[in-house]
């Protein structure tokens, strides 16, 4: 029950953060969502059995299931590395990380210092002037 509520609160927080404009909030939302997934994964192994799984031979009724823990460990490492990558993306993507209106319009977008990209790209972006809020 506690795990279910915790996962629910984490998902709610994640959704709240996804609705924000700044990329940083969205990334933090993914951190929360990742943890919610991990909580569910932990719950899959049963939360009542807590004894250590290796070493002393124990009753199977009290020993914790090691497999979900191993899964969670893997998932945490993966989520962590992807989070770092996304942080780098949001930092290098633009000088400020807001997703503002018309940000997809090359004329409004921040110009990359090296190549002054705003001019020559209508060919590629000509067909896609739509969608994003």
């Amino acid at each position, binding site marked *: 029950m506690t795990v279910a509520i915790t996962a629910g609160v984490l998902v709610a927080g994640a959704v709240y953060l996804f609705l924000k404009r700044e990329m940083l909030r969205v990334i933090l939302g993914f951190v929360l969502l990742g943890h919610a*997934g991990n909580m569910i*994964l932990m719950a899959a192994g049963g939360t009542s059995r807590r004894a250590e799984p290796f070493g002393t031979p124990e009753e199977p009724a009290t020993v914790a299931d090691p497999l979900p823990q191993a*899964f969670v460990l893997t998932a945490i490492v993966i989520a962590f590395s992807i989070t770092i990558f996304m942080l780098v993306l949001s930092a290098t*993507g633009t000088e400020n990380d807001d997703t503002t209106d018309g940000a997809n319009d090359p004329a409004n977008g921040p110009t990359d210092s090296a190549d002054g990209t705003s001019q020559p790209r209508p060919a*590629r972006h000509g067909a896609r002037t739509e969608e994003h809020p």
Partner: protein
Amino acid sequence: MTALVTLPVLLPLLAAALSLMLTRFATIQRLLGLIVLLLIVLDAAWLLQVVDSEGPVVVQLGGHAAPFGITMIADRLAALLLLVSAVVTLSVLLFSIGQRITDYGRDTSSTAFHPMYLVLCSGVSLAYVSGDLFNLFVAFEIMLAASYVLITRRTTASRIRAGMTYVIVSLAASLLFITMIALVYAATGTVNLADLADKMGALPDGIQLGLSLLMLVVFGIKAAMVPLHFWLPDSYPTAPAPITAVFAGLLTKVGVYAMIRTQTLVFDHMESWTVLLVLGSLTMIVGALGAIAQDDINRLLSFLLVSHIGFMLFGLALFNELGMTGAILYVVHHIIVQASLFLACGLVTRHTGTVSVNGMSGVAKAYPLIAVLFALPALSLAGIPPFSGFIAKIALFQAGVQEATPIAYVATGAAILTSLLTLYAVGRVWVVSFWGEPSTPHPDPDPTDELIVGTRVTSRSMTTATGGLVAAGLLIIFVAGPLSGISERAATDLLDPSSYREVVLGDSAIAGGGE
């Protein structure tokens, strides 16, 4: 024999580490990548031959018994896709090496490109051969992490936004994947696919259906199934041509493969699955209509990619032997054809200096070779006989008509309509861009930017790579007989997974007894 299964995963991964150390020696780094991928092609061809004659090859990593250890298994489907993917990755690497040399000179090397590309190949191979659900998740993550780097490499702010869409959608799918694994594990106590096949049947119908739909959604996002396809046409065209080619050719197809694998092996679908038939038909129609509306040639091809995913879903949804055979043939055909189209398109845009269909004309007159390289896969995609698309499509149409339920007829009708719309979409490109008098090429605004479109030199290896891949697509016509044979046997295996289970769990019982 077991090394044949592990090598396509280990070799590129180790080579990626080596490649990272060799960033100062551009030539050696390039050779390393090409040699490794060539080895994988040979390995996969050998594996396919072994698997087709002797049955699936299983590796229990670390010698742990099957439901507890990590299983890697190559059956006919996995080996076939491994071979096709290896051919595509090799051609695309050759193409991108050519492109990089012409853009940055012979001695320059990029730190990230070669290692990440090899990691991507490793992840794709692992996805094909992994025998348990969590390993499949890890394979997807390896593949996706590499693809995040490749799609956002050397780009500018506005394109990082598009890359960000891709990263966020993929990440959301991954988190859903891990939740799905948690629920599957909670319900059955195992993640081994063969073991799951045994235990899933004991669950109540509602839970089975829920898990099956959850898997459909998770892999549907990866495979760009309508209505989960919105991210694809926005993000794929923002990558350089060879990267788009390998993404379009492989990543979505790995999603389709995972879908085929889990739905046939784990769940017991006895008859055609209406939900998937409807989704498949929608995918075909929506994608094709989207393609017609596009002016950017890369976006047009991306929508066609979405549309043709529908054909594979259609074949899978029928859950009969003919449908499954058609789906497998379609995956094989589409991996090669879609990748070669994107490569050919990369050549076209480098010569004309624009991605706008209306902005170029007379390509056929100015660059006849490139026009041929575009036309052959385009005709194949539309399903004109005798190209590979025709062989795959006719198998699917037969399957749909044989099923003879109203919804199957509707889906078959949608498939035929989509073929015509595809022909219209590529025909329009042909008429507008390839016929007529050659237009003045658009000048190159910034030679140092890989992605800004403008007239560039092309190297011989780019044309060779495209030509090779187109030739591989044509080769399907000549090996259609044996290929259909293998696909049919693979389809039989998929629909009767008892041999798969026996090989995985039976071997482990023997190994377990020995310890």
